[in-house]
């Protein structure tokens, strides 16, 4: 910010200071806008570390339905918070991870999962990369094989025509 060449006289220094002040004033609305609004909510507290681990894993795997490219743990949306609390509550009540996942899928569908299950509709998603990989390996092998054959054909004995040509060259020497 201060890389602007500053002339060493009083008037321009004041000008620079004024511009900096103006710039900071421009940033003020950003500061005012940032940060949570309203009453802070009760934090989610765990006494059992295993449950906490399950909770964190689930919050990473479940999608926030409001900001659809974020998972529950990333999202600040109100619904994400509600769902995080619901996940925590269900785990504390003794439900396992599968039961919580099932609960979410029953309500929001497979879309809620960042790890979609293997189904008829998702075979391309899961199988596609492997199909491409095997196709790539196959194509590569074919290519290697073809070029090997070509090479060996080249290096093998000369054809009759070539032999004659070679003899001609040698004789002329």
């Amino acid at each position, binding site marked *: 910010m201060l890389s602007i060449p500053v002339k060493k006289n009083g008037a321009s220094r004041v000008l620079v200071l004024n511009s900096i002040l103006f710039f900071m004033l421009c940033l003020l609305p950003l500061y005012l806008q940032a940060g949570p609004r309203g009453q802070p909510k009760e934090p989610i507290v765990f006494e059992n570390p295993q449950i906490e681990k399950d909770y964190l894993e689930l919050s990473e795997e479940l999608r926030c339905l409001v900001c659809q490219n974020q998972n529950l743990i990333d999202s600040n949306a109100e*619904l994400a918070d*509600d769902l995080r609390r619901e996940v925590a509550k269900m785990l504390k009540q003794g439900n396992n991870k599968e039961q919580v996942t099932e609960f979410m899928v029953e309500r929001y569908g497979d*879309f809620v999962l960042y790890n979609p299950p293997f189904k008829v509709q998702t075979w391309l998603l899961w199988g596609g990369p492997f199909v491409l990989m095997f196709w790539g390996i196959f194509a590569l092998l074919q290519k290697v094989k073809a070029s090997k054959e070509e090479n060996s054909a080249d290096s093998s004995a000369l054809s009759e025509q070539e032999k004659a040509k070679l003899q001609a060259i040698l004789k002329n020497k």
Partner: protein
Amino acid sequence: MKKQFMTPLIIFGLLVVLLVVGLMKAKYVRDVPSPLIGKAVPEFSIPTVEDQQKVFSNNDLKGQVSLVNIWASWCVSCRAEHKLLNVIAGQGIKIYGINYKDELPDARQWLAAYGNPYVKSAHDITGRAGIDWGVYGTPETFVIDKNGMIRYKHTGPVYQQDISEKILPLIKQLQAES
């Protein structure tokens, strides 16, 4: 053209087709397909906005074709569709409301100001019923058949076109079912 150049070109062409299809569908990407369609409405029993002594429960939705509309006073697009709801309620369509995560005075004031098309509205202050209904953005509108089954879900505000082309014909069809 040499065959070896054709292969990447064909793959590229297929990718383009895939992406174009994806983009064409992108308009509807926000519409998460509801797994609740074809299932019974979730069980709930919640005091109403109008009278906290009375409840709105899933049993109210049996024996008639009705709409369930998720709304809130803080929801701007709810206001956009509200006039239409008033109109179709006036035509005799039964609309039930679920007032989602709203303060009671706000909700009541809203109904007083914009009209109340609802038979009654559940006051779902915690949003827990909303989770059971798979709500992820207000407003949402569900069509419920006589057996209390969810038959259709509309996410976002309903417009005249949605009402006349989809919702009203569906209601008529469901009313004809025994």
